[in-house]
């Protein structure tokens, strides 16, 4: 059996530091909310749609509340109050606000009990719907059997949801286990979620609730015909992380990209905003039984994969601790890493093997998410195809949870239908060829692989301890992460963070916390 020998004390120290860091944001999670958290509450209350200009109702409602200084008590209260006052549904309230027919600041506060009753009923209903989706997913896996390991994960990214559907179905029929619909360029910077089915995206298709629904329906069809449950995933990260998490929960996405720090480091979103949003978004994920996927690969697209290997490990440990805080179980933590070592480096396979084994050894129960070569993919499609084969080899050999298949045209265009098919063929061939190879082998005494894994772990531990000392925000401001400086009060979206007042209400949060047994 291929197995690392990690120093247990170092593992413990690293986890302790990470836990310390993640644990220091109680104040933020407890006392603050954000525009998108409120919009996600609005969505959970059943409000959806957009005005003629495409502005989503949840934005119009929450912006209205902000403009009227009604936000600190939470959108839930304001809407429930309006419902009690007007006898309308939440959606009707929102439409009236959008039409300018209703000014929520003009309404009298109804009796606390009446509001509480409305909220209780409406939140029960929303959570029940999410639970049903979770249970349906579980029943599908029970019926058809669990996902293969590594699961075959491919992306579609045509920009047009209807083309995406064709490509996704073909991929699922060919053996894909998970379909990711890649988002249009920089959707994470939009402070709203576009509405409806979309056909024009760049480098990907907008994440919208309707698009989620269309794709889910298509994949449910294939699941039934193939007798294999096909999972769907999309990105939550960005300025709308909680909202998209809610949409995913409602439309039965099965996994979601959700990294505690991605928005800060790679999208220059404000640190407080990001951490706060991910806290709530992940709780929604946890409640919905959605597997999260983190974005450690991003570190390696800009930094050297050997030199900065420890940043991946450190980030995984942090993501793990933040996930625990939100009630996510290890079985649902798709912690990320990536195959990005320069293919010209001697013994790059051994190095990569060390890194991949380290991730698996640290998170043995997690469906670790393994990203393919991208940086060194070139216009030479034949060579890129080979790099993907080596990546698939290590994926199977080390038992990764999710294998994000590399495309032979990675350096050229978002995948054509045939590219994806060749990627699946590549994975299936390699997975089958080296199926049980890991049980045939062991590491030689004093192997470089074992040494290397321990070195990376030590570097990560040292780094985490330093960050714990300094405080995460200070460390980020200093550029300790990915060589990027992110000051605590810089970046996009800080103005969307606000302090909750005493009377603030978020019935969803409270109920989910209870059910997830969080304090």
């Amino acid at each position, binding site marked *: 059996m291929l197995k690392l020998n990690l120093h247990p004390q170092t593992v413990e120290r690293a986890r302790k530091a990470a836990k310390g860091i993640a644990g220091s944001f109680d104040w933020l999670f407890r006392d603050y909310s954000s525009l998108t958290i409120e919009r996600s509450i609005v969505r959970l209350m059943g409000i959806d749609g957009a005005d003629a200009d495409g502005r989503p109702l949840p934005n119009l409602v929450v912006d209205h509340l902000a403009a009227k200084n009604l936000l600190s008590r939470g959108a839930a209260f304001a809407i429930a109050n309006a419902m009690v006052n007007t006898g309308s549904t939440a959606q009707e309230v929102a439409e009236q606000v959008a039409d300018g027919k209703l000014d929520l600041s003009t309404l009298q506060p109804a009796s606390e009990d009446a509001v509480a009753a409305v909220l209780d009923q409406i939140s029960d209903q929303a959570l029940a719907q999410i639970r049903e989706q979770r249970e349906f997913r579980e029943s599908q896996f029970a019926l058809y059997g669990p996902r293969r390991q590594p699961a075959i994960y491919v992306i579609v990214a045509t920009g*047009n949801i209807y*083309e995406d559907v064709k*490509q996704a179905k073909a991929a699922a029929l060919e053996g894909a286990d998970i379909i990711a619909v890649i988002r249009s360029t920089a959707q994470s910077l939009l402070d709203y979620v576009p509405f409806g089915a979309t056909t024009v995206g760049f480098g990907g298709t907008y994440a919208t609730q309707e698009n989620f629904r269309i794709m889910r329906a298509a994949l449910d069809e294939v699941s039934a015909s193939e007798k294999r449950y096909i999972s769907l995933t999309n990105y939550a990260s960005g300025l709308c992380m909680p909202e998209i998490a809610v949409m995913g929960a409602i439309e039965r996405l099965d996994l979601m990209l959700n990294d505690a720090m991605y928005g800060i480091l790679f999208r220059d979103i404000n640190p407080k905003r990001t951490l706060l949003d991910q806290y709530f978004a992940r709780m929604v994920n946890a409640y919905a039984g959605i597997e999260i996927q983190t974005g450690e690969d991003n570190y390696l697209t800009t930094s050297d994969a050997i030199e900065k290997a420890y940043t991946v490990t450190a980030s995984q440990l942090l993501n793990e601790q933040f996930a625990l805080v939100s009630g996510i179980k290890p079985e649902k933590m798709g912690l990320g890493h990536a195959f990005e070592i320069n293919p010209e480096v001697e013994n790059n396979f051994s190095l990569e093997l060390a890194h991949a084994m380290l991730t698996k050894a640290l998170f043995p129960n997690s469906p670790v998410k393994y990203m393919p070569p991208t940086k060194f993919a070139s216009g030479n*499609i034949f060579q890129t195809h080979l790099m993907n084969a080596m990546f698939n080899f290590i994926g199977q050999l080390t038992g990764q949870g999710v294998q994000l298949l590399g495309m032979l*045209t990675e350096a*050229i*265009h*978002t995948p*054509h*239908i045939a590219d994806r098919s060749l990627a699946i063929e590549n994975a299936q061939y390699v997975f089958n060829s080296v199926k049980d190879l890991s049980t045939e082998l062991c590491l030689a005494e004093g192997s470089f692989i074992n040494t290397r894994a321990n070195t990376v772990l030590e570097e990560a531990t040292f780094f985490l301890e330093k960050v714990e000392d300094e405080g995460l925000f200070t460390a980020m401001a200093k550029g300790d992460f990915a060589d990027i400086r992110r000051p605590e009060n810089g970046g996009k979206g800080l103005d969307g963070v606000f302090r909750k007042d005493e009377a603030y209400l978020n019935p969803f949060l409270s109920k989910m916390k209870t059910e997830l047994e969080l304090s």
Partner: protein
Amino acid sequence: MKKELIRPYGDTLNDGKIQFSFSLPIGPGEIGKEAARIILKQLGLEDIEICGMRDLKGGFTQFIAYASTSAGVDPAEIKVKTVDTPVMDMEATDEFIASHLGREITVVGACIESDAHTVGIDAIMNMKGYNHRYGLERYQYINAINLGAQVASEDLLRRARDEKADAILVSQVVTQKNIHIKNLTKLIELAEAEGLRSQMLFICGGPRISHELAIELGYDAGFGTGSYSTDVASYIAITLAGQRAKA
């Protein structure tokens, strides 16, 4: 009737995307890249993207490219000659022969002329067969004689005449410089000359053989990659039965 043309598809209907690779006798560089682009332009392509350029050394460069074509075809108008007899399994074929012909069929097979690739014809003829289909030798109502590799056309015809064969099976795998065309043509011309052509079915096979090509070369049928004994046996049995019915 409106023509529904189909076009190459990358990620959007009718985007016409095709992947290319080819080498030019020119060194790598901007001039070479432009030469590659011009070649693709001469093929009528658009949106040409030379994405890969590999120095093959010795004055050659390989280019890897994507481009779009407006070429399209109406699938409804495509006619291909294919072997259309239904395919029966071994037992059914044996029964069919027994009831429709009432006698054993004799087939003589060979890899002719310089070709030594017997795996294909063996897959069809040998007892053992291929991919879970027994070969013709195993059929109760087929007398299968496999002459093996590099059999001169003359020898094959002689044996077929001696055995009063119902069908001749020829395999051709090497195709460099169209040697398979030459060999297959030689055989059929000899057969014509000897008056054998009308006496038996002439069937050929190989990875670059299609039924269409076989017909063109004057054969009765042709079988390409992925053919099985069952295809050939059914074809022979049904065709012979048809001929008998007509006669």
